[in-house]
């Protein structure tokens, strides 16, 4: 220490420490290497989405026409369209929302507003595990409970299976947005003599509602593309089924699944068209919901 103090002009000695050594050069090189690897991984992470969008667009754009949207399936699959599948999805997915949304939302309200910390932890854990349960198992479950006893594949069973898929997703996203509601709003409401349940519904849920709705939309977009839960339940149907929920019903993913496996190019092309339709729906919902929350975060 004293050496430095006494020789403030000992420039060469101290300054020489600044010169790049071989270890420094190696460190810089490693730094660049890891940086590049991470960047490459990030690129690979984005590529699948772009590739899927690209492939589906290229192959499906030609098949996505008015016939596909409006015409029912023809026998032998030559000509015709995906009307049965579109109408089927338009019935089963909303029904799944009707069944699953209240359960998911109220479960989230319970864990955020009412339950103790431990119960909330258990419920959250169960929901997270349910998200990870393979969807084919959900389909088998719905098959056992809603198909076997009736000896009839039916749309309700399909909706129940989809509802089971969306419940944990809705529950977790709702929970996230309810937790963001400031505690002082709860206090303000309770201090007005508003009962706890009313505070939970009219203040907390209402304040977090946009986040909740976003979560529901994302869950529905996910459900609209689920195939496995429908194979054992709604089964699929070449005929248009509107309103008869006790009978088999077609859905877009089932339509894609069936037609993609046929040996006829016309049917393969219809599958691509339906795939593009499904992709557009999922993309639009995701961009709307996520774009909005992205903007909010950036603000």
């Amino acid at each position: 220490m004293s050496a430095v103090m006494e020789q403030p002009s000992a420039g060469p000695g101290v300054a020489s420490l600044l010169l790049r050594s071989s270890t420094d050069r190696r460190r810089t090189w490693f730094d660049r290497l890891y940086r590049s690897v991470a960047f490459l991984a990030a690129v690979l992470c984005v590529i699948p989405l772009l590739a899927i969008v690209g492939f589906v667009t290229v192959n499906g754009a030609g098949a996505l026409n008015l016939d596909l949207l409006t015409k029912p399936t023809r026998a032998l699959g030559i000509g015709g369209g995906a009307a049965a599948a579109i109408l089927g999805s338009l019935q089963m997915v909303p029904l799944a929302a009707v069944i699953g949304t209240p359960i998911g939302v109220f479960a989230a309200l319970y864990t955020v507003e009412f339950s103790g910390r431990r119960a909330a932890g258990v419920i959250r854990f169960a929901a997270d595990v349910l998200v990870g349960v393979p969807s084919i198992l959900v389909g088998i479950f719905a098959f056992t409970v809603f198909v076997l006893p009736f000896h009839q594949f039916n749309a309700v069973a399909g909706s129940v299976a989809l509802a089971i898929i969306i419940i944990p997703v809705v529950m977790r996203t709702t929970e996230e947005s309810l937790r963001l509601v400031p505690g002082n709003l709860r206090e303000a409401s309770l201090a007005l003599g508003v009962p706890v349940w009313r505070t939970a519904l009219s203040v907390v849920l209402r304040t977090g509602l946009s986040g909740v709705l976003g979560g529901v939309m994302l869950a529905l977009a996910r459900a609209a593309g689920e195939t496995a839960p429908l194979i054992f339940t709604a089964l699929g149907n070449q005929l248009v089924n509107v309103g008869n929920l006790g009978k088999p019903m077609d859905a877009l993913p089932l339509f894609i699944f069936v037609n993609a496996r046929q040996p006829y190019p016309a049917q393969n092309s219809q599958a691509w068209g339906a795939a593009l339709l499904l992709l557009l729906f999922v993309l639009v919902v995701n961009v709307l919901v996520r774009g909005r929350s992205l903007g909010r975060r950036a603000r």
Partner: protein
Amino acid sequence: MAVDTAPPAPSDPSAVPPAASQSPEQGGTALAPVRMALPPRPVTPRSTAAGGTGAGRDTSSQGHLEITRLNAWYGSFRALKDIDLTIRPHAVTALIGPSGCGKSTFLRTLNRMHELIPGATVKGSIELDGIDIYGSDVDPVRLRRVIGMVFQRPNPFPTMSIYDNVAAGLRLTGRPSRPDLDLTVERSLRRAALWDEVKDKLRQNGTSLSGGQQQRLCIARALAIGPEVLLMDEPASALDPSATLRIEELIAELKESYTIVIVTHNMQQAARVSDRTAFFTMDDDRAGYLVEVDDTSRIFTNPRERLTEDYVSGRFG
């Protein structure tokens, strides 16, 4: 007066007596029509002369709080120790003291908000006009409609308009009719000295107002449910000086009709707005206790306790 009495059914026509047609600009009685217009509450309107459901109860001392040997805990931590305090009706009582001495905790025991915190407990008695608010026959939800509260940070409901914020208490606790609501919202906003600034934009979002306006909106929201007592937890500490001044002027007006208890860190504010001042501090275990309570002028000029004098003269805290 019985806090636990069931209110008449909302459809009871006597709940909206002819008094509602009185001129609102009659000084002391101005409030009566507001209260008449409210849906039935467990507490009778203050002015029985104005009609209404008043069953000949003593209305002169409403809003009188008598606190006896009050203790409060957070889990095993004792936050308040043996508080004895009388809060006079229709006066402003300021609670002052160093940070962490339990002023806010004490305030929250008065409307039973304290017990909402997991593990929080209370022992002792608080009587509002002779009724023990911790009695087994008192519902804390009802109590909070009689003892309103304004918080440190303005907290209007962000999803609601100005109008809806003021109407929230009534809407979420009953089914008020539209004319009643209109009347109550206007009266409450007038009482909170906010009406002239917002009357043309009642449909705008409550959070579009300035901080000071938001706080007056929160005061209007608290007044709309027709409380007897108003608890204020540092209501001006998040506001700029001119907004603070307006709140202080407002407090001076409100004490004509309400019993006000205000926690403040600002001793000048306590001296300006309050009639009585209670000085809290904490003991070696960090449990808050009341050192003394007296007329504000006396606390700031010639307190009985040495501790108080040290604090108000800035020697500690």
